[in-house]
């Protein structure tokens, strides 16, 4: 079975500084990978996803993530964060080409410091 590990439960970052949110996955088969974001008092929405092709995936709000198969990672990055990026970020994985559920990580809460 697949699993997702988000290594940091909380990440504090100063405004305009870069950020990386780490995600590692485990699976015996090929996978699709996702990052979802949950802004305060809002529902989850898709930030970006990797299905195939280029390993660097660009998403909304200036975020990007890189799929690294050898390291089984899908870290999320942004070169310069803003107060509006304050949210909880969830990494998720699903098995390739299967009608199947998505497995979510426990989330990383991003705190932007002024």
């Amino acid at each position, binding site marked *: 079975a697949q699993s997702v590990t988000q290594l940091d439960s909380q990440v504090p970052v100063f405004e305009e500084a870069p950020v990386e949110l780490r995600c590692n996955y485990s699976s015996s088969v090929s996978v699709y990978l996702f990052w979802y974001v949950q802004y305060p008092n809002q529902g989850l*929405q898709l930030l970006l996803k990797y299905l195939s092709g280029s390993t660097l995936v660009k998403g909304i709000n200036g975020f990007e993530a890189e799929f690294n198969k050898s390291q089984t990672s899908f870290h999320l990055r942004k070169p310069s964060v803003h107060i509006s990026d304050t949210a909880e970020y*969830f990494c998720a994985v699903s098995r390739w*080409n299967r009608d199947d559920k*998505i497995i979510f990580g426990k989330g990383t809460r991003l705190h932007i410091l002024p």
Partner: protein
Amino acid sequence: GAGVSQSPSNKVTEKGKDVELRCDPISGHTALYWYRQSLGQGLEFLIYFQGNSAPDKSGLPSDRFSAERTGGSVSTLTIQRTQQEDSAVYLCASSFGAGAGETQYFGPGTRLLVL
């Protein structure tokens, strides 16, 4: 509306009572998912529907939990004899299909508090 809607938005109940949570998916979406979000626990998968059938019920925590979907649209999650540990935010999501790469669209959730 165009998004996934859930009702009620908040529910307070007494231990031992039954509750029903409702989800209206985006029109035309054939797949529907239920998750539970507890503080510090991320999103816990409960069940998903493809049409009216539920191929995967593996996430339901106990036989007190059940869900149904009718007409390929609205879904109801029922918790019988609620316990305090059932307190959480229950999220519903829908997607155009149940394929593994499909984007899920989430509702705002129902916040359940069991006293």
